[in-house]
């Protein structure tokens, strides 16, 4: 398949998905019953000044979709003077509205916390992939032995385990050896230098462990079946016939072919991992985007909910695109012929 064709198709799909998410996000909070927007304006804890700012910024006084009078007066430009265009304008400026409960700018809240979730997810995910791939290879190699069945049972078990409950179990079992909540022991400040970051690191251990232990089983099972499938291909018999020993055959012929499906699977499960991060941040009160979303759910803080959902969805879409491009680079069959 033409590579340029593959890339264009993937990029267009990603852009279309982004647009769809933005539109979906806008409508979600206006169409559904109990129009939350009105709620934002008239909630008791909003200062008059903040209400005014939101009203003007988000053009809440204007019609949602098509501006009738604006059309008569200024023609086309008038017609588009609506809530939706205001929403888009604010979005491009990075203004996601004001938090209903903390009255801080949503974009500020997110900017402050995003790297914490990124660290958690990236570290957890990389460890899960790394260990999962290795265990998967071992299981495929030793297929049919007791090691293989025990790895399979471990996989089934973690598949049945809700992430948040596994977090709770780790919390109980660790029994104080590791910090069980928050990001840093109170009193330490970032400018304390290394000591501060070491402390953050220790707080990161349990949440990351939860993600890693649960998600490595998915990669392991997929890697195992992919390796077993690749190892039964004709070109592996050719390699063996060429005089390569088992290890050389595996390294030079089986590995790359087995890794290809892994890239697509990782892309597919990214959305799932983000869901896991929300649960882990809730259980260990790790102050990332996930926790922010959880609090927003509890307090009905719609602007924050809207903002966090947008950020999470957009980051997963971009990560997916990257995985697709990586696949195109790895698989020669997608090269321009």
């Amino acid at each position: 398949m033409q590579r340029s064709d593959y890339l264009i198709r993937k990029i267009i799909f990603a852009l279309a998905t982004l647009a769809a998410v933005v539109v979906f996000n806008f409508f979600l909070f206006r169409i559904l019953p109990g129009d939350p927007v009105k709620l934002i304006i008239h909630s008791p804890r909003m200062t008059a000044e903040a209400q005014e700012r939101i009203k003007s910024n988000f053009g809440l006084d204007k019609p949602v979709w098509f501006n009738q009078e604006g059309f008569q007066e200024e023609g086309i430009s008038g017609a588009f003077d609506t809530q939706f265009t205001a929403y888009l304008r604010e979005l491009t400026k990075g203004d996601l509205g004001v938090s209903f409960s903390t009255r801080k700018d949503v974009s500020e809240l997110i900017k402050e916390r995003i790297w914490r979730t990124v660290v958690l997810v990236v570290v957890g995910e990389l460890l899960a992939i790394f260990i999962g791939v290795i265990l998967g290879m071992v299981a495929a190699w030793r297929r049919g032995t007791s090691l293989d069945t025990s790895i399979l049972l471990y996989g089934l078990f973690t598949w049945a385990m809700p992430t948040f409950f596994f977090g709770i179990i780790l919390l109980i079992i660790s029994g104080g050896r590791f910090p069980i909540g928050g990001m840093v022991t109170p009193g330490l400040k970032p400018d304390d230098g290394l000591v501060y970051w070491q402390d953050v690191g220790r707080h990161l251990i349990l949440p990351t462990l939860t993600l890693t232990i649960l998600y490595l089983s998915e990669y392991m099972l997929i890697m195992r079946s992919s390796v077993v499938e690749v190892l039964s291909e004709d070109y592996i018999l050719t390699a063996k016939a060429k005089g390569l020993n088992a290890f050389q055959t595996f390294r030079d012929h089986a590995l790359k072919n087995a890794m290809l499906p892994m890239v697509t699977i990782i892309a597919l499960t990214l959305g799932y991992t983000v869901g896991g991060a929300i649960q882990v941040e809730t259980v260990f009160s790790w102050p990332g985007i996930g926790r922010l979303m959880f609090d927003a759910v509890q307090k009905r803080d719609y602007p924050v909910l809207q903002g966090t959902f947008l950020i999470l969805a957009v980051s997963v879409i971009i990560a997916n695109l990257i995985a697709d491009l990586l696949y195109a680079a790895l698989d020669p069959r997608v090269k321009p012929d």
Partner: protein
Amino acid sequence: MEKQPILQIEDLYKQFPVTRTFVDRVKRSPKQVVHALDGISFSVAQGEILALVGESGSGKTTVGMNVLGLQVPTKGYILFDGYNMADWAMGKLKSRKNGDELSRLSKRKQILALRRRAQMVFQDPYESLNPRQTIWEIVVEPLEIHDLGLSADEKEARVRAALEDCGLAPADHFWNRYPDELSGGQRQRVVIAGALVLEPELLVADEPVSMLDVSIRADILTLLQSLRKTRNITILYTTHDLATAGYFTDRMAVMYLGRVVEIGPTAEVLKEPRHPYTQALVSVAPVPNPRKKRKRMILQGEVPNPIDVPSGCRFHPRCPIATDECKITDPPYVKITSKHKVACLKTLSVD
């Protein structure tokens, strides 16, 4: 009495669009088309067995699909018993003769009437039977699709007759079995029985023996040949193996890149092939005796891409006796005998 041809193919063209990528659309590069068939004309008499021979990409299977109405020609037409096959396959038959009851039937009924009279035998005995159906369900299915108003006993009788005519006797020893319990040869017999149960007049056999072991091929070929006598069936036999065609077919059409380059009585075409391509194919067919080794006329290169067909005579790039003239003119048919004609400019000089 010259038998009235059951099948008439006039100037048949079949082209498949090439899927356009984004880049093509952006650059608005010209639409490309695969020239599967580029003007085929021949007719088949009632009860005749015609072989369509050629390498992959010659279009022999496409002819079979169009003859059965499973594909609709891009240009030209096929007459089956006087009806236009393309219209019939779409159920849009215009009344051919006055008082013709067929064209008054509904679309679905017309298509069923066509399917009853023209059936197909497939290449891969392992793939052409639904592994989840018993032999009985496979062979009786056509009777369920076409409710011919048969009672249960009549259906059983028909299935039994079809199975036993195909050499699977006693029938009740087989019909409760599943395909994976039978050998390749037996499975191919079930496929043929499935086609016979509707008592068709035309059978298109697409490479029916190429997947079978040599020792059981002859039986299937003899079975196909016997159908002409026992059931008065006309057979279109497509294959790449000239030797099997030589064994049981009356006439042979040699195809290259969507065209018939030579057509004539099988024995004649095999004994004195006149088209250079046929000569090469015959010379290259392996003969099971080292003493009869013949000089092989091996054509270099591969069958060209059917998207951009070579100019003039399409065989000229690989033809050993091609001249400049062959590069420009598309060769018309030259009559060797009343039934044997060749599309090659160099035929006469070859005598």
